[in-house]
C-alpha cells in the first residue's frame, strides 16, 4: 500500500513538472507581454520605462534562462511574484484557493447526492415515468453549457425574482457581524454558483448510478437478500447501492479536473473570488508567473483528488485492499 502510494505520488510530481514546463512555453506563444500590459495600464510609457519593466522581471533574458530560474525558485517553494500586482503569487493564490475549494466541494456534494438519489429512484422502475423524467433531466443537464446555466439562474433568481445575490462570496457590508450571520451570507451567495456548477455533473452521476444500480439489482445477492425477506430500503441502500457506488467514486475522482475547469467559468459569471477569476485575469494581463502558479496548484489539486479517489476506492472495495 505504501509502495503504491509512493509510486502514485512520484507520477503526480512528474505530471506537475510537465504541466509547468508546457504551460511556461504555451503562454509565451501568445502575442504581447506583461510589460505592455503594465505600461498600457499606466496610460502608456516611454521606451525606457518598458525596458526597465522587462529588466525588472527578467523578461529580457533568454527563455531557457527564465525557465531555469523559475524552476529553481519553485524547487525552493517560491512561486515568484505577480507582474501585475507586485505581490507574491503564493499570497494571491492563498487568498483565492479557499473559495474555489468551497465552490467545487459544494458542487461535488450537490451533484453526487442529488444525482445518485435520482439514479436510484430511476433504477427502481426502469421503465416508469420517473425513470424517463430522470433521463430527460439528465440529458438536458449534460447538454447545457455551465456558463449559460449560470446566466439563466442569475436572470431568474437574482433579477426577475431577486432572492439571491449575484456578486461575490459575501456582502462586504456584513464583514463585522457575527460568524453565524456571515456563514448564512456565504451560503446565500454560494447557492447559485454551486448549483450551476453541479448541474452538468449531477446529470453524469444520475445516469451512471441508474445504469450501475440496474446491473446490481439484477445480481444474485440482491435476489438472495430479497428472498431472505430484507426490506426494500435495506435491499436498495445496504446491498445494492454500496456496490453500485463503486463506479460513482471512480468517476467522482476523474471529474475533479472537469469540476475545476467548470469552476473557472462559474467564478467568472458570478464574480466568485476564486482561482478561476484569478487565472482568467492573469491570462488577459499576460501575468505569466501568476498564471503558472494557478495552473500548478490546479494540477496539484487534480493529482491529490485522484490519489484520494484511489484510496477511497480501495476502502470501498475489499477486493482491492490486498493489491499493491
Amino acid at each position, binding site marked *: 500500500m505504501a509502495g503504491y502510494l509512493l509510486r502514485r505520488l512520484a507520477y503526480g510530481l512528474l505530471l506537475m513538472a510537465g504541466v509547468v514546463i508546457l504551460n511556461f512555453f504555451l503562454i509565451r506563444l501568445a502575442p*504581447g507581454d506583461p510589460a505592455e500590459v503594465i505600461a*498600457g495600464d499606466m496610460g502608456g510609457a516611454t521606451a525606457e520605462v518598458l525596458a526597465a519593466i522587462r529588466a525588472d522581471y527578467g523578461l529580457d533574458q533568454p527563455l531557457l534562462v527564465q525557465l531555469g530560474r523559475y524552476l529553481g525558485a519553485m524547487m525552493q517553494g517560491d512561486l515568484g511574484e505577480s507582474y501585475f500586482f507586485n505581490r507574491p503569487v503564493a499570497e494571491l493564490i492563498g487568498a483565492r484557493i479557499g473559495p474555489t475549494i468551497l465552490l467545487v466541494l459544494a458542487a461535488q456534494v450537490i451533484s453526487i447526492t442529488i444525482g445518485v438519489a435520482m439514479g436510484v429512484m430511476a433504477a427502481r422502475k426502469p421503465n416508469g415515468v420517473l425513470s424517463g423524467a430522470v433521463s430527460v433531466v439528465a440529458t438536458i443537464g449534460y447538454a447545457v453549457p455551465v456558463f449559460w446555466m449560470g446566466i439563466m439562474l442569475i436572470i431568474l433568481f437574482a433579477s426577475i425574482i431577486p432572492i439571491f445575490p449575484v456578486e461575490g462570496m459575501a456582502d462586504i457590508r456584513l464583514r463585522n457581524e457575527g460568524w453565524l450571520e456571515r456563514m448564512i451570507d456565504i451560503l446565500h451567495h454560494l447557492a447559485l454558483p454551486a448549483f450551476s456548477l453541479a448541474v452538468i455533473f449531477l446529470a453524469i452521476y444520475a445516469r451512471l448510478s441508474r445504469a450501475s444500480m440496474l446491473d446490481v439489482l439484477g445480481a444474485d445477492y440482491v435476489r438472495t437478500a430479497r428472498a431472505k425477506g430484507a426490506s426494500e430500503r435495506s435491499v436498495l441502500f445496504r446491498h445494492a447501492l454500496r456496490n453500485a457506488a463503486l463506479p460513482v467514486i471512480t468517476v467522482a475522482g476523474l471529474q475533479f479536473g472537469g469540476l475545476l475547469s467548470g469552476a473557472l467559468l462559474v467564478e467568472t459569471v458570478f464574480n466568485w473570488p476564486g482561482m478561476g477569476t484569478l487565472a482568467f485575469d492573469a491570462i488577459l494581463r499576460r501575468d505569466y508567473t501568476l498564471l503558472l502558479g494557478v495552473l500548478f496548484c490546479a494540477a496539484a489539486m487534480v493529482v491529490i483528488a485522484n490519489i484520494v479517489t484511489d484510496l477511497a476506492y480501495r476502502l470501498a472495495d475489499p477486493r482491492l485492499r490486498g493489491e499493491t
Partner: protein
Amino acid sequence: MKFARILGGVAALALLSPFAAAADGGSLVILSTQTPRHLNGAVQSGTATAVPSTQLFASPLRYDAEWNPQPYLAESWEVSEDGLSVTLNLVKNATFHDGKPVTSEDVAFSIMTTKENHPFKSMFAPVETIETPDAHTAIIRLSKPHPALLLALSPALAPVLPKHVYGDGQDPKSHPANSAPIGSGPFMLESFTPGEATILKKNPNFFREGYPKLDEIIIRIVKDENALLIAMENGEADIFPFMTSSNSIKRMQGVERLTVTDQGYAGIGPINWLAFNTKSEKLSDKRVRQAIAYAIDRDFITKALMRGVAQQQRGPIIESSPFFDASIPAYDVDLDKAKALMAEAGFADGMELSVDYIPGNDEQQKNVAEYLKSQLKKIGIEVSVRPSPDFPTWAGRVSSHDFELTMDVVFNWGDPVIGVHRTYLSTNIVPGVIWSNTQSYANAKVDEILNAAAVEGDPEERKALYAEFQQIVGDELPIYWLNASPYHTAYDSRLGNPPMTIWGPMSPLDEVYWKEPK
C-alpha cells in the same frame, strides 16, 4: 424553529446594520469593472487606481465643476509674474493617517517622486527644484512657465505621499506601501484585496473640519457587467461610475431609485477616435484621410450605434474643455466630395485597408469598425476588420506601427499638455510605446505651436495657440475624432453631493452624504 430564529436574526441584522443610520455616516458601495494594480496614484495612472487613491491621498489643489482650482492641502497659492515659480501655502492642521504632520517636505518629495515615476512625463517635466523655506510653504521652481501645473496638482495626478514612508530608498513603483498606503485624504485603508475589493474607512482626523460625511467606502470589482447592473438594481451597490454601454445606461435610467448623469468626466476628456498610420503609403496623402472623414457619419455613430448616449467630438481637445475650438472643420457627410478627393489622390479605383480596434468595448470600438467597413465601401475602400483577442495583442500591433487604421480611445487628462500633446508631437513618435504618436504624424508648425502653448501663461493667448493647432490637425487629420466616450455615473438618488466636478469619481468623496437614511 431554529431556521426561523436564524431568519429572524438576519431580518434584525438588516434593520440594525450601519447603512440604516442617519444622514451623516453610512457606507457607500462603488462598483467598478477595473482592477487596480495598487492604490498609489503618484506612480500609476488610470481610473482604477485613481478612485481609491484620491480618497487615501490629499493633494495640493482640487477642482470644481467649472475648471476652477480650489484650496485643498494648499490653502492658497501664487504664480509668480514671470511664471517661473509657484508658491503653495499649506494648511497647518493636516496629518497623515499615522498621525505625522503633512509638511512642505512631503509635498516637495511627492512632486519629485511623481515627476520621476509617473507615466505622464509632461506633467512635471519643467519642475527643477522645490524649495521648502518653512514647514508650510513650498516654492516650485520651473525651467520654463508651465500653465498646466495647476491642473497637474489635482488629486488624481499629484497625491501627497508621506516622505517618512516612501523616502526609504525603495523603488516607489513597487513599494510595499502602495498596497497599504498612508495618506492624508478623507478615508483610510481598511483592506485591499487584489482583484476583489478595497475597503476604506473614515479618517477621523481629516484636516477639512466636518468631513468626510460617510463612515466607509467599499469599492467592489465586478467583472460581469450584467451582474453589476443587477447589483445596482437590487440595491447591493450605490454608485456605478465609468459606464459607457448604451444598454447599461438605458437600463440604469429605468431604475426609479437611481439618477444617471454624464457629468464628472470633463477632466478625463475621453475621446473615441479613428487613427491613421500616416506612414502607410495609402494613407500618407491627407486627401485620402479627408475622404474617409467625409464618408463617416458621426451623427449615425452617436445616435444609432451608441443609441444617443454619446456626444460628437470634432477635435483633439474634448469639447467640454475651455480650449476646444468650435470652428474646427466638421467634415459633415459628403460622399461626392469624398470620392472626388479619392480620385484627386490617385485612388479613383479605390483601395483596401484594414482597421484594428480595442477588444472589450464593442459599442465604442468594434461596432464602429464594422460600420466603417460598410460605410467606406461607398467610396471604394474595401475595409477588413482585424480583431485582436485581447488588449496586449492590439497594443502590440499599434505600438509597433503595424496597422493602417485603428480605433482607439485616448484621454485628455485635464490640460492639453498632459493628454493631448503626446499624440501630435513629432518628438513623441516612439515605436513600442502605446498612446504615443503612433500615427507617425510630423508637422514642424504643430510642434512649434504646442511647445509655445505649453509655456504660455496668458490663458487667452494659450487658447489662440490651441485654436491654431486645432485648425491644422483638423485639416491634416492624423486622427479623425468621432465621439466623446459616453462615460456616465449611475447613483442612488438619496446621495447628496454626488461626484460632479471635472474629475468626478476621481476626486475626494469627502462631501458625499446620505440625504436620508438608506
